[in-house]
Every structure is written in structure tokens, then in C-alpha cells.
């Protein structure tokens, strides 16, 4: 519109044309350029809401005539009035009329205190410079923040895909395991049945045989085994004989080494019957390590009696072990899938920009306390004595409808004495790095944190600039 006259920028030619307006409007204190049209000097002034007509000399005469306060833009007379701080060099703004001549400098151009004893300095230039520097700084932060945000979004996309792939893989593994499980369950059941059946039969047979003195199922004595192993019948068992007749339980094809044989004989190369009973016989009885070649089971056991039973039992045990192993694997995979699904179900922002915060924790020490925020998980407070108190578990986004991603709510932390449970609001602010900036407890057990992070930088901020009447 018009150049500001007080700056003396009126060109001579238009100055003539505008002279009267310039002079008139100069009198009207407390209005902005855009409102000058309401205050052209005539005989009378119409309240801007049209409610009343008053003589023009009652404008800014320190008495409120208009109910909308429009007749007193430059005084404190109207309770609902407002005063325009032109603030050349800084930002113009309105203040409530009640701040005109109240002894407190509100406008940086000091225009609000024209009749008070408080000396106000014009600080607009400094403020403007400072604000421009600040805004520039903020813009730099914002620019850098947005760049980092883009990176994090891209990383987020990759992570997301990775996680999705991981989920698919896990799903596949899970499916495989499921199939295996089905087979193994059947196999295990079958083997168990077989072994049980054999065993039952054997027990039945043995019960019959126990009543007959000719039964070859009588338990073996150390003497009979000693005789069996003593191939050269010299009344002692040597390393050679051990190597020839015994084999490891697991692998019958494998021969025992000399050292192993010596060890079985209690550290000597030759034993007599009594020494045999103390050493090798004990090993054979337990059946853990060695067995007589061509035999199954422990001497004296059912399996020892019948290699078929031994094989069936062993097969059933193996099947059960296999099943257990796969069941465990399935359980693990199932949990992983559940966790992953849960994580993937969280709202990480419109562009999943907050995904990167996942699995990270941020700490801040405030006096004697260390606060830790693990986004999408929990907030804790650790005291100097090491006591950890939960300040809330991840609840939800809690920002305004316009930007719900500017606040996080963590709830149901440790209950307060005589009060509700602790909870924490996390305010997300734009910055070039991700860090916890402040922690406060404005009300008891209600915490407020500020988390600075690039992903909270909004391009909209760029539009905020400095308006001035220049």
C-alpha cells in the first residue's frame, strides 16, 4: 500500500497527493497500515463493528466508546482493545490494550509506553538481528534435519523391507518346521509304540523264563563276562583283548585306542578278575561308553538281552530328541515372528520415519537421576542408589490431530504413592541429532521429556519467516 511516511520515503510527487492522509493517520496511535482506512479523519468515526458513530476527536481520547474497542487503538481505555506494535526492524504484532502505558515495555519500539515513567529503549533492531540469526540457525538446522530425515526415511524403508523379508523368512522357516514337526511327531509316536511293544513282549517272555532254570536270560555274572573277554584264557584281560572285543557304544565299527583301553583297565595293561570287577566291569554295567562288540545294551539289561529292543528304544529316544529340538526351534521362531509382527504393527509415522528409533535408547542425567527413553518400548528413571523406576510403557502417539507424531505417550509406569501410575509425555522436536534434551516433572509422577530428532523436522517450518513493516 502506501510507503510509511514516518520513514520520509514519500516521493515528492505522491507526497503531495498523500499529504493529508499521511498527516491524518500519523495521529492514530496503535493501528496497523491495513487498518488505517478505518481511521481517515472525517467529522465522525464509525466503530469498526458499525455499532456506533462518535465524533472523530473521541478516537484515542482515553475513553472507551465503542463496544469493540476500535475507537481506542492507542490507549488502554477499552478492555477488549488491541494496540499495534509496528516494531520497525522486527516483527509487528498486537498487544492487548491493557499493556499500553502499564510501565512494562512490550513493543520493542517502545511505542506502548508513551506516557509511562518507565523508560523503554527501542530494541527492535537488535531483536530483529538476533531473531534473523536465530531463524537462520533454525533454518540451517531444519535444512540439515530434513536431509537427515530423508536419509532416515530411506534407511527406514530398507529396514522395513529387511524386517518384512525377515518376517517372510521366519514364516517360511516356521512352515518348514511345522511340516517337520508333523513328520517327527508321527515318527516319534511310531518309534515309541514299537519300543513299548517290544519291551512289553520281552517283559512278558522274561517273566515266563524266570520261572525256568534253563533260561538263557539269566543275568550275566562278572565271571562269565571275564571269561568271554579272556580270549587266551590266561586268567587276565589285556589291552589287546579289550581292543578286540569291545567297542564304543556310539560306534561299533570304531576300534578303541590303546589309551582308551588302558583307561578302561584302570590305567594298567593287564587286569585279573578282581581288578576287572573294579574297573572294566563297572564301565560295562553302566553301558555309557563301551559295549561288547555284537551286543546291544548293558550287560544284565533287557536290551543287553535283546539287540532288537535296544535298537527300538534307542530309535524312540532319538525320535523324541529330534522332536524336542524341532519343537524348540519352532517355539523360538514363533516368538520371533510374534515380536516382529508386534513391532511392525506399531505406527512409525506416515513415512515410517520413526522406525529407526526402534531398539535405541536415549539417556539424560538430571541431578541425581538418570532418565532413559527407549522409544516404542519404555521410559525409566534410575536413581543414584541404582533403583530403577518405570515411568511408563509405550502407549500411543498423542499429538494434535494435525500432527499426531509430535508427542508420544508412555503410560502405566510404577504406581505413585496415593496416586495414579507414573506416565511420561515425550515431545518430539526438530534437531540435527537424536537425543534426549530435557526431562521435567511438572506434576507429581507426570513426566515430560523432549526428544530432539531430525525426523521431527517439518518442511512447513520453512515458511515461517520474519515479517516486518520495512
Amino acid at each position: 500500500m502506501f510507503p510509511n511516511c514516518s520513514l520520509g520515503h514519500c516521493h515528492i510527487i505522491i507526497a503531495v497527493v498523500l499529504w493529508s492522509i499521511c498527516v491524518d493517520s500519523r495521529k492514530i496511535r496503535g493501528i496497523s497500515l491495513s487498518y488505517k482506512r478505518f481511521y481517515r479523519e472525517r467529522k465522525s468515526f464509525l466503530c469498526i463493528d458499525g455499532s456506533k458513530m462518535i465524533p472523530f476527536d473521541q478516537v484515542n481520547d482515553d475513553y472507551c466508546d465503542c463496544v469493540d474497542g476500535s475507537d481506542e487503538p492507542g490507549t488502554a481505555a477499552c478492555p477488549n482493545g488491541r494496540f499495534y506494535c509496528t516494531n520497525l526492524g522486527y516483527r509487528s504484532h498486537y498487544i492487548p490494550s491493557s499493556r499500553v502505558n502499564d510501565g512494562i515495555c512490550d513493543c520493542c519500539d517502545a511505542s506502548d509506553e508513551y506516557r509511562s515513567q518507565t523508560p523503554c529503549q527501542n530494541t527492535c533492531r537488535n531483536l530483529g538481528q538476533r531473531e534473523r540469526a536465530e531463524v537462520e540457525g533454525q533454518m540451517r538446522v531444519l535444512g540439515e534435519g530434513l536431509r537427515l530425515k530423508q536419509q532416515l526415511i530411506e534407511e527406514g524403508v530398507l529396514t522395513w523391507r529387511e524386517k518384512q523379508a525377515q518376517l517372510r523368512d521366519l514364516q517360511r522357516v516356521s512352515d518348514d518346521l511345522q511340516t517337520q514337526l508333523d513328520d517327527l511327531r508321527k515318527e516319534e509316536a511310531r518309534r515309541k509304540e514299537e519300543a513299548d511293544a517290544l519291551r512289553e513282549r520281552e517283559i512278558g517272555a522274561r517273566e515266563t523264563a524266570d520261572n525256568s532254570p534253563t533260561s538263557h536270560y539269566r543275568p550275566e555274572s562278572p565271571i562269565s563276562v571275564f571269561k568271554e573277554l579272556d580270549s587266551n584264557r590266561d586268567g587276565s584281560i589285556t589291552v589287546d583283548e579289550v581292543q578286540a572285543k569291545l567297542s564304543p557304544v556310539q560306534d561299533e565299527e570304531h576300534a578303541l585306542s590303546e589309551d582308551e583301553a588302558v583307561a578302561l583297565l584302570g590305567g594298567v595293561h593287564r587286569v585279573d578278575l578282581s581288578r576287572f570287577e573294579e574297573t572294566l566291569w563297572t564301565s560295562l554295567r553302566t553301558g555309557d561308553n563301551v559295549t561288547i562288540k555284537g551286543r546291544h545294551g548293558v550287560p544284565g539289561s533287557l536290551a543287553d538281552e535283546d539287540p532288537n529292543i535296544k535298537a527300538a528304544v534307542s530309535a524312540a529316544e532319538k525320535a523324541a530328541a529330534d522332536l524336542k529340538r524341532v519343537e524348540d526351534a519352532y517355539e523360538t521362531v514363533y516368538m520371533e515372528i510374534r515380536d516382529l509382527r508386534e513391532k511392525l504393527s506399531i505406527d512409525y509415522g506416515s513415512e515410517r520415519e520413526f522406525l529407526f528409533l526402534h531398539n535405541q535408547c536415549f539417556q539424560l542425567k538430571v541431578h541425581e537421576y538418570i532418565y532413559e527413553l527407549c522409544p516404542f518400548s519404555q521410559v525409566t528413571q534410575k536413581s543414584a542408589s541404582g533403583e530403577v523406576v518405570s515411568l511408563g510403557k509405550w502407549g500411543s502417539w498423542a499429538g494434535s490431530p494435525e500432527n499426531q507424531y509430535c508427542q508420544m505417550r508412555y503410560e502405566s509406569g510404577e504406581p505413585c504413592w496415593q496416586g495414579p501410575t507414573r506416565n511420561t509425555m515425550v515431545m518430539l522436536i526438530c534437531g540435527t541429532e537424536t537425543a534426549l534434551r530435557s526431562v521435567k516433572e511438572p506434576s507429581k509422577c507426570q513426566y515430560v521429556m523432549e526428544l530432539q530428532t531430525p525426523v521431527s523436522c517439518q518442511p512447513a517450518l520453512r515458511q515461517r519467516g520474519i515479517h516486518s513493516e520495512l
Partner: protein
Amino acid sequence: MAAFVVSPLKMGPLLVLWLAVCLSGTWAVDRGNFKTCDQSAFCKRQRALKPGQSPYRALLETLELTNTKLTLQLINDNNKVRLLLELYRLQGNMTRVKINELKPLKPRFEVPDVLINDPPTEPLSLLSRDENGVVLSLGADSQRLIVSAKPFRLDIMEGREVLLSLNSRGLLAFEHLRIRKDTKVDPEGTENKEETEAANEPAEGEEVWGEKAKEDEKVEDGMWEETFKSHTDSKPNGPSSISLDFSLPGVENVYGIPEHADSLKLKATDGGDPYRLFNLDVFQYEVFNPMALYGAIPVMLSHSAQRTMGIFWLNAAETWVDISSNTAGKTVFGQMLDYVQGSSETPQTDVRWISESGIIDVFIMLGPTPADVFSQYASLTGTQAFPPLSALAYHQCRWNYNDQEDVAAVDQGFDDHDIPYDFIWLDIEHTDGKRYFTWDHHKFPQPKDMLQGLLDKRRKMVTIVDPHIKVDSSYKIHNEIRSKGFYVKSKDGGDYEGWCWPGNSGYPDFTNPEMRAWWASMFAYDQYEGSMENMYTWNDMNEPSVFNGPEVTMHKDALHGNWENRDLHNLYGLYVQRATAEGLIERSGGVERPFVLARAFFAGSQRYGAVWTGDNAAEWDHLKISIPMCLSLGLVGVSFCGADVGGFFKSPSTELLVRWYQTGAYQPFFRAHAHLDTPRREPWLFGPENTALIREAVRQRYALLPYWYQLFYHAHHSGQPVMRPLWVEYPQDTATFSMDDQFLLGRDLLVHPVTEEGARGVTAYLPGKGEVWFDVHTFQKHNGAQNLYIPVTISSIPVFQRGGSIIPRKARVRRSSSCMEHDPYTLFVALSPKRFAQGELYIDDGHTFNFDKQKQFIHRRFSFANNALSSRNLAPGSQFTTFSWVEKIVILGASKPSKATLKTPDGKESLLEFEFDASMSVLTLRKPGVNAGLDWTVVLQ
């Protein structure tokens, strides 16, 4: 703040354990923590004594009459112990009755420092005397004081009418000090006994004093030792209680004896506990019961349509007051009484006072009007301290504003939401570990920067300084008090210690003037680090509160010099506030008026600052009870009273919070406060509509500050209460006698706050036959002497201006009251049906004693009569200049003039523009523009 419960995280484990044991029940007082009359040995003993023939007899032959007093001995015919009665006729229509033991074993406590001087006396003259008694003239109004000898009683009469009788029910009981004679006697007992008997040797031979011992032998439980819960009270002086009854013929209404969370009109106590006066920190007190609370003012007012009187029982020990109605037995008067007892239908109230120790020292204030009683009481104990104007504005408090940043943010919040406030408060958490006079250096590293920030906005701060002092050898305050021997002592002679906020604490002996002088000196700017002239003080916990003491207070056998806490318990809080107020005065070289808020108080506390109703709760009943609680205090001198807006414990509903702001805006001390455990509740946290409602309530307060200031000037000047029950101004209107859901501010504003949840209307009683009242918001006129139903919305605050009054307001509400200092006035002239109105305006600098010392003030009288409104000087000897002027005059109930002319003393005349609203009969005169300190007249034609 306060109540003795904090988060266990902040307390030592021992205390937590103790609290856990102590606190059962969540949101109600634990009655078990506090004594009933039955659990208080002396109360039980005294109450067991029923009305009947008094054993006391006046020994008329001992009568001595001097210019100033009459003295007379009384004898108890049962135990032969003699008492000394002193009667004084005091200036201003008062009678003082003092009764002490004639020869006590050791001196009994007489309350010092409460009376502002030795009350000036007037001579008593003897009208007649015979063997049955004496009749004395009390001077004016044919008032006589009749002393009957057997049984002893006193009657004060006016003409043929008995105004008041003492001991008419025979309940005078004076437990004389004695030597312990039961088995638990200490070894020195025998020795003492001999001395005692020597001391009790009768002056005259006629009585055989030794015989009284028979009566002494009766030793009851609780006479020499008393245990309550885990606390044992050693009673080295044995029984020492006193009791006296007062009968008030023709009286049905008695008021006062705060502090109780009960109705304004006191209830009969038959069948229940008496009203108790014993300063206690009562955690989560309940409303509508006679339990003792934080403060005690032993003053009762009686009122009937004919007369208002007062009884001031000057005793600082634990006291119980029994009230009954029409239960007095038929009284028999001596022959000389020229009186015929009226019909038995005559209403009568009987009152009985019982105190644990001290003497009987009673001031009978004979009125006859309420205003007379206020003046009489003020002449004894002084008037309300005149607060700095800003202290009458809005206060924002919370336990706690956490740090400097928090303070700055709240301060800014008020500006952002355009809500005025004057004071922001810091509760105990601002200190370094509850060491008062210090700051938490993490949270408040630069207190002066913070205070300067507030000063720049012309605002102020209050920090809390409690009387319990952390026992900590690295704490300067503690070390000095200990080394000077200023702590209260335990019965064993060591420093008395108890638990309070800082943990183990000592309690300075504020009864010691040297201690008080030292304490006051601690408020000097160079002593109290980080303090500035815009920082004022809050004394909480000054009952004193002792978390682990009996009934959460000090042991009665703790020693203040030679006196037991038992003797002066209720006086401790007064001394704390006094020493603090003196400190604030001294730090400014005697120039600035102090502002000190205290929780505990006694008669005379009004001289030192403000009180509040303690730790209330965010409940509708607590909002309601704030009215009778402050009215009761106002009746006995303490005008500067308020309740925590919003309620201290619990979190208020938004509706309750808004209603509380609306009520608090019209009560003298207007402070929002909240417990540490409650969610934040600054006015803008409840949505824009509620912010607007609260803003409007606070703005109404600020606009009315000139009237509030004027009322406080009067309270200071003449002792008239600021907040008044209706009966004070309409003493003959029996409909008002028990009204306590509405009240008057001064004479001219009637307030009926909305205190019901979900209210759609209230019924206000507008008093005064032939009078009119104007709704201050709509200017609607209503007739007096009617119950008016007023439909209300959430924005309604029913307030009415009396027809016949003129009230000055400041319409330009700013950020703080200081910002409004030079602003112009709007006069609201409410015409009576006879088209008459009167009002006042008081102006001074708002914060110094210059109004008093140098008469620097303006006091104007506004009168509207004969269609002319004029302003004239009420204080010709004073001088003060103001920038303020008169911007608008609003005349309610006016008719339309043809012209309005402003005349000033210099002879100038000018026409004023005006507007006339015919529908409401409101005439608005535009911009008279005259200075508020000058003479002027506006003539309507």
C-alpha cells in the same frame, strides 16, 4: 501447602513407616489421631461436673474498690481454696473479669502480647451493698453489675434486663495448683509440701486452711500424667484446669470461636463434643464438625435482634467450649435484684468455657451493635494489618513450582492467556533440603534473576519459611539458634526435637522476644540470600506441626522458658507470624508494609497478616465451608482470610475449579493452591471456555480492588470486618441469623456464590425492607427483603450492589495490580428508592506505612443527593496526589436528565456527555476527567 504427608520417596524410611502406621483411610481425617473431650483428662473431669449450686462464695468483707477495679476473694466451700476476683469496667462498654488463685503454689500463666495495651479503665461505682452482694454501676445505659455472694455469681443488667450472667449454672471450677500426693510422688515432694502449707497459711485466722487437704486427696486418672496413643504427657504441675459458665438470656445465636470447619451459627454441643480450640495440623479435615483446626481465637459473639455482645476468653491453653440452648435451670436471684424472671419461653443460650491451665480472664463486650462489638474487640487486640494493595489481588500457588524455568513459564502463561496475577508462590521444595532461608541451587540457581524477572512485570513472589528448623550442624540457622539457646526445650531440659518436613527438627522459642528479634533479622536482604523487596513470606506449620508428636503437635510438657507449651500452645503460631512480619518491616527500614500468610493463629494475629483455612480438599463441601470459616474469622478480627482455591488435596472437576475461582474472587485472600500429588491446574489447562471463565472471575476481582482496598483500610482503621454475615448489617432481620451461603463485602456488596454442583439457579436473600439491590452484571434492580431466585449458568457470579451505595472500580484490568496504579476510576452509583447514595474512595501509595506515619493518603466521600453527585475530602489532614482520575460514572436506578454539568472548585463548569439506558434506568456520564483526589460536583438537570 502442607499436611504432614509427602511421597515416601522424599522421606526417611523411619518416617514413612510411622506414616504408614498413622494413616489409615484415604480421604478423611483420621479422628483417632485427635482427642475427644473424653480423651482429654481435664475436659473429661470438667465436663463431668454438672450444673448445680456453685461451691463458691464471695467473701464480701474482702471487697476492695479502687479507681480502676474491684477486688474480692472467693472461697470454695468444699476445699476452702480461695480465689481472687478482679472486676474492671473498661472504656468502650466492656467489663473484664479476672479470677486467679489468691495464693497459687506458683504463678499461673497470664497471656502476654495479645492485648495491644493495658485496657484503659473507667471507675466502677458502688450502688448498693448488703450481706447478699453488691451492685455496681457500669455507667452508661443504666447498666449494672451485680455480684451475688452465696453462691457466687455475676449478672450484668441493663434496666430490668439481664444481659449476661456468670456462674449462674455453678460451673465455675478452678483446679488449684497442688502437691502431688499419690504414690508416684517424686522424692522432693515432702519438702515442697511443707513450703506449700507454709505458703497457704491463711492471712486471717477464721478459716482452717488445713482442712482443704481433704478435698485434694481425690486423685483421678490423668491428673498427674496422661497418655494418648503412644505419647505420655508428664504433668509436673498436676491438674490446673479452669472453667466458667455464661448464660445469655434472650440469645439464640452465637458465633465465632474459630477455627472450625462448621456452620457460621454455632451449634449446641449437648450430646456431642464441645467445640475445641487447640492449634493442630489436621490432615484432611472434615467439614461440619467441632474438631480443633490450625488456629484458635477464643472469642464468641452473641446476637439477638436486640443486642450483640462478645465474650473474649483470654487463655492460650487447650480450650473446649460447650454450648447449650434453654437448658439453664431456673435461676434464683438475691433479694436486691429488682427483677422478675420472665416466662420460661424466653430463649437462652448457655456457654461454658474450659481451659487446661492459666487463669480466667474474660472480656465481656457489651455491644450493643455488631459494629460496637467489633470496635470493642479491636480496642483490646488491635485491628487487621493493612496489607499491601497487591496482596489483595490474585495469588498463584502450588506445591511446588519446580524451578526457575517453571516459574518463568507459569508467569508467561498468565500473560499469554491475559489473566492478571500479582504473586507467585514457592512451597517447601524450593529450599535446599527444607532448610528455610535457603534455595535449592539446582532448581533455583539465580533467585534474584527470577525475582527481577517478576519485578520487571511488576509482580511479586512469596517463599515459604516454616518455624521447624532442620537439625543439621552445617545449617547456619540451626547453629545460631542452638548456640543462642533459642530452641524450645523438652521437659528434660535439652533442645526439643521432633519430625517435620526436613526430618529431625528443632522448634525456635518464638515466645522469647530475643528469639523473635533474631528471627526478624534473618529477613534482612543481606541475611536471606537471594531475597529482594518483591519477595514476601509464608509461615506454614506454625501450630506447630510435629509429625511424631502427640496429635501431630508439640508435647505439652515442652518448655518455653519457664512455661509449658500447655500454657501457651495456641499462642505459638501468632508469635511466628509476628516475628516474620517484623522481619519484613525491618528489612525495609520500617518503610514497607509486610505481607505474611500463616496457618496457625490466635486472638491478635490479625495485626500481623493473612491466614487461610489450611489444607482443604477439592470437594464441593469444602468450597461451601470456606464461606462460614472466613465469616467466623472476620467476626473476631481476622479479615484477611481465604481458602485454597481449587482445594488442596485431590483434583477438582473443572466445574468445581471454575466455581471456586468465582467464589474466591469475592473472598478476602484469593489464592489458588494445590497438593504436590495433584495434576497441574493453572487456569489455562482446561480448555479455552474454562480459561475464559476463570479469566473473567479474576478480572472481576481486579476491577473491584479499589473497593477491597477501602474495606481493608476500614478494617485496619476501625476493626470492622471486610467479609460480613448479613446479620451484621441487618441485625434485626432474623431471617439472616443463620445464613452462611452468602455474605456481604462491607455494607454494599452482597455475594451469593454458586457452590452447588450442576446448579441451574440459586436463591439469594436480599435483605432490607424498603431497600433495593442492583445486579452488578446486568444492573437489574431487585427489591430487598425477598428471596430471589436467580437462574445461573457456569459464568454466573451472583453479586448485588446495595441501593444507596457508591462503589469505585477500575475498569482497566491489567497484568498486575501495580500496573493499574495510575488508572482512572469508574464510579458505580446505585440509587436508593429515595434517590440517595453514598460511598468512599481510599487511595495511597499501596505499599508503605506513609499513609499512617505521614498521613499520605486520599480519603473521599461521594454523596449523591438532590440529583447532584459530589466528592469531598474525608481526611482534611492528609495529603497525597494521584494520577488517577474519574473516567466514568454509572448511575443505577437513575432517570434521564436533560443535562449533566460538572463543577470544579475553581468555578469552572462543563457539560458532560451521557447515555441513558431507559430499559434498565442506567445513566452513564462520559469522561468527567477530574482527578480522583479533588473536590467536584456533577449536577443532573
